[in-house]
């Protein structure tokens, strides 16, 4: 996603806009289509959606069982809204997510603005350290963090959760900021320097406002990643500090239930809202740059 997409030419367009003198052979008429690709792709996208849509439909079930349809109702949404354990778990999750998001976003901005000053090798290593949580299987990071906090004398609980979440949120908060910085180029900053901006003025009046779209996308992604995390949270949670996904897992272990369907649906709605927000943002941005 680095280089701007080249202008798409219609297959009939010749460079220079001259009408083609030679008629193309028929097999080249539909350049964009490769036989057998479309059905697989459409199947794949349907495959991604059918299971989560089924869950959503059953969230509106009136019956007491997760799977026996007894007509449409919002009953279970009401029941879930009154479940104190669930609400407590949600509050815990929100507290952790807010702290992790704010801290990881601030750290990411500082890092993105200074990493290029390191020599090539240094910046590569620094980036690798920060993005390691993307490729290390989460279970390894979870048990390792558990061992680590025991070693430094912490106990599982809120503080441990907040620190661990902040750490694995950094790559997500960082990526959009770096991408934004890259797309800005250097002209704005050079202009500000030429006009005599001090470092602080530059940061306050130029850099920060220009980075806002990247910062918002990054913060939103970090927030969702923190709110959704289960495996690491599972190993660091304590009684009184049970995040929502850990609570949800304990419900699921007891088998399918209408309550789980409802929580699942709400989490799906969250994903849709967040993805759409970031999508619309990037649309606006590409319009501005056009």
């Amino acid at each position, binding site marked *: 996603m680095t280089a701007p997409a080249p202008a798409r030419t219609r297959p009939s367009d010749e460079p220079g806009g001259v009408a083609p003198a030679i008629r193309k052979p028929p097999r080249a008429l539909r350049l964009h289509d490769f036989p057998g690709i479309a059905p697989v*792709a459409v199947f794949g996208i349907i495959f*991604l959606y059918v299971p989560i849509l089924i869950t959503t439909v059953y969230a509106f079930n009136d019956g007491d069982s997760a799977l026996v349809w007894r007509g449409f109702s919002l009953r279970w949404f009401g029941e879930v809204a009154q479940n104190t354990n669930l609400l407590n778990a949600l509050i815990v999750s929100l507290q952790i997510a807010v702290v992790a998001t704010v801290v990881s976003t601030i750290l990411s901005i500082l890092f993105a603005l200074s990493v290029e000053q390191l020599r090539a090798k240094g910046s590569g290593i620094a980036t690798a350290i920060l993005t390691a949580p993307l490729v*290390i299987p*989460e*279970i390894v990071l979870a*048990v390792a963090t558990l061992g680590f906090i025991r070693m430094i004398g912490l106990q599982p609980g809120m503080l441990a959760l907040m620190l661990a979440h902040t750490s694995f949120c950094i790559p997500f908060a960082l990526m959009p900021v770096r991408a934004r910085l890259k797309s800005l180029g250097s002209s704005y900053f050079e202009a500000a320097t030429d006009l005599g901006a001090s470092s602080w003025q530059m940061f306050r009046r*130029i850099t920060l406002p220009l980075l806002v779209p990247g910062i918002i996308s990054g913060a939103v992604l970090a927030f969702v990643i923190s709110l959704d995390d289960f495996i690491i949270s599972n190993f660091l949670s304590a009684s009184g500090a049970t995040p929502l996904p850990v609570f949800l897992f304990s419900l699921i272990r007891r088998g399918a239930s209408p309550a789980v369907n409802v929580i699942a649906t709400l989490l799906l709605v969250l994903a849709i809202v967040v993805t759409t927000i970031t999508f619309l943002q990037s649309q606006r941005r590409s319009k501005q740059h056009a």
Partner: protein
Amino acid sequence: MSTQLDDRTGVNLVPVSAAPRHTRAPGRFPWPWVAPALLVAALFTLGPLVVIVVFSFMSRPPQGGGVIYEFTLEPYVNFLFQTDFLGNTTFDPRYLSVFGDSLLQGAITTIVCLLLAFPIALWIATRPEKLQNVLVLLITIPFWTNLLVRTYAWMLILNDNGIVNSGLNLFGLPKLELLYTPMASQLGLIYTFLPFMVLPIYASLAGFDFRLAEAAYDLGARKSTVVRRIILPLATPGIVSGVLLVFMPAFGSYVQPVLLGGGKVLLIGNLIASQFGDSRNWPFGAALSVIILIVLMIALIAIALYSRKSGKKVEISL
């Protein structure tokens, strides 16, 4: 700051000295500002990894979890051998087969995801721009949906009274044991990680310049040749990145084997979890984690060698 001395004629009368080599780019911070983020990552990513490696060479306390700081190779020996109470050590393939099963489930997941994701990514990349954006959005929504939710959805489908079995019932067919099987766990892994393969491949194909394909057709290439000789090489960095992003989490998966495989599927991920949970054998759990990290290292080295050889930069990002 010679720029301020320029006159307005456009002719620069002041000899501009070459910029010193280490000036900061305007608007950037000095390098020490990388420290806060690195410190957090060092403490909560690198730190734990170092600790887990150390733990894997330590002894078990007489009871309970945790470790005693006495060096031993026992956890690694345990992986391959078992010692009975008479002190006879015999080769024990059980853990090795768990490792093999994990590799196999990871490999199957990766291959199936690749076979599905390449056509999806190629198809999306060849749609008109507006539609492309919507389709990418469609792929990212499942990507950002909670892992438990996506796994649970299959529990609803494969359940004894689930969608599939209800359907079979309608046709008077007998119920199938679908949930809590290795098959279910495998299906869950493929479903969960498919977007992780589609997105990087799409990223490497997005903005594909169709004049390349046109040129190939003009030179008499067939469609299959264009895919093989032009599109595939373009997609390779994305494929490599996708393979890593799918294989590693699938190989070390925990949620899908537990929820969909039930008690019947033991992969290295849930084996590690149990060592830190009920079994309370932290050093052995740590040794298993180190084995996963070694597999990750091998994968990363392979990718580094590939990018050096092909001269293509593989970025592991989403």
